[in-house]
């Protein structure tokens, strides 16, 4: 195994996520091409890049919603999805091992994916009760805490279809937080929202960042990335082209592709 790279502050520590030489193909399409990076505990990383660059696929590989075809993803030192064995063909981990690892990875989707047949409260307590095994009262108490923190306690008995998109996405974040994850993955969390609803979701995410949550965010919100991220990962055509602190990345990206991408994004938001 390679040596652990030093942190920004020079300490060497075991990363919470370690990705090495990950490849993924959809048929002929090489969606992820030799992806390697580390995420330190508490770090906030924004993954940006043109659509079709593999950002979402990368995020979905981290919790094994997509299976990577080669390479290894470690979560706190444990390989995700496959058992490690030197020299032999890799072997799929058991479903229960994968499920257990997923419990500590929260995920927020572009399309919210709240369960329409359950109330806000039902959505949030479902996994704590039926995955972790909490009692209803414990789960509800924890859920109310989270709902109060995101300002939606009065919506506990509402159904998803009665909420605005922004409220739905905040509930989706609450649902993920209820499992007390060690890391949160956000897959374009504001991309399907009306512009006036984006702010409330980003505000909740900023709050999470301030609380020290480890976050990986695929986003097109450059202001958010510039403010919140410790590091920007820029992807194009399945390759990580740059990993840089936001100040440096936005000032002078070192790749032509990144320059073009930023120009395009900025032109769009100036309009």
């Amino acid at each position, binding site marked *: 195994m390679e040596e652990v790279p030093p942190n920004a502050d020079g300490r060497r520590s075991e990363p919470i996520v370690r990705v090495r030489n990950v490849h993924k193909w959809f048929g002929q399409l090489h969606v992820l091409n030799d992806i390697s990076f580390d995420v330190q505990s508490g770090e906030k990383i924004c993954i940006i890049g043109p659509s079709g660059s593999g950002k979402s696929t990368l995020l979905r590989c981290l919790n094994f919603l997509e299976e990577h075809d080669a390479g290894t993803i470690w979560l706190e030192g444990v390989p995700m999805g496959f058992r490690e064995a030197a020299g032999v063909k890799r072997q799929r981990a058991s479903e229960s091992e994968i499920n257990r690892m997923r419990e500590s990875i929260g995920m927020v989707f572009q399309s919210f994916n709240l369960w329409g047949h*359950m109330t806000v409260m039902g959505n949030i307590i479902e996994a704590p009760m039926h995955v972790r095994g909490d009692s209803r009262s414990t789960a509800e108490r924890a859920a109310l805490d989270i709902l109060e923190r995101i300002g939606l306690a009065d919506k506990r008995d509402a159904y998803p279809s009665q909420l605005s998109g922004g409220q739905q996405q905040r509930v989706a974040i609450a649902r993920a937080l209820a499992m007390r994850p060690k890391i949160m993955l956000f897959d374009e969390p504001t991309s399907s929202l009306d512009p006036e609803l984006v702010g409330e979701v980003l505000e909740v995410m900023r709050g999470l960042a301030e609380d020290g949550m480890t976050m990986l965010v695929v986003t097109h919100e450059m202001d958010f990335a510039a403010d919140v991220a410790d590091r920007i990962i820029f992807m194009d055509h399945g390759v990580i082209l740059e990993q840089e602190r936001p100040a440096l990345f936005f000032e002078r990206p070192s790749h032509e592709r990144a320059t073009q991408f930023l120009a395009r994004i900025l032109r769009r938001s100036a309009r």
Partner: protein
Amino acid sequence: MTFDVAVFTFGLPILLKGLVNTILFCAVAIVFGLFIASLIALCRLSRRWFLRLPALWFVEFFRNTPFLVQAFILFFAFPRLGIRIEATVAGIMVLSLYAGAYFSESIRGAILSVPKGQIEAARALGMPYLRAMRRIVLPQSLGYLLPATTNQIIGVIKDSAALSVITVPELSMAAQVVLGESFSPVETYIMVALLYWALTAGVAALMAHVETRAAARVASPTLARVGMAGKSQ
């Protein structure tokens, strides 16, 4: 054409006995069929080919050959294998498999009618596949599943008439008994038709009731607005 009223008084008790058997056989076949269908549907949605392909072949065979032929094959295959089996048992078996193949298609359709993101959200939280199916997908697919299943149950009841050819003592078989005595085919088969109709209409009414109950139990936004709110799930 004249109507022979005597046939009714003579034939009805025999036909009613046949009807009771039809109800019994169909009920058993539908219960087994639903069980088989759930397994087949999950196999067909599996990413493992050795589950998916046999399930596909099973459905193809039972959907693309006449039920009558299936019944004959099963009925004559057992003695050939040296297994003595009663016509009724063979009949229920073939009806169950047949029902299973048809039900599995509507279960598969129902599962696919629920957006993929719904189950992904559950899986991302660490929920096992079958539990996610039961708690997240199934309740949301009932609106699709129940009407489709109603149609197929009615189909199974009507197709069970073919079991008379392998001497299963159900309603159509009873009709032949009545016919052998009375020689009045029109009167006999009108009675048979009315009895089948009564049964299928009864099933349709029962299933409509089940749909209403399911809609009330599975909370939905429309119901929430008329007073279901306040109950978490």
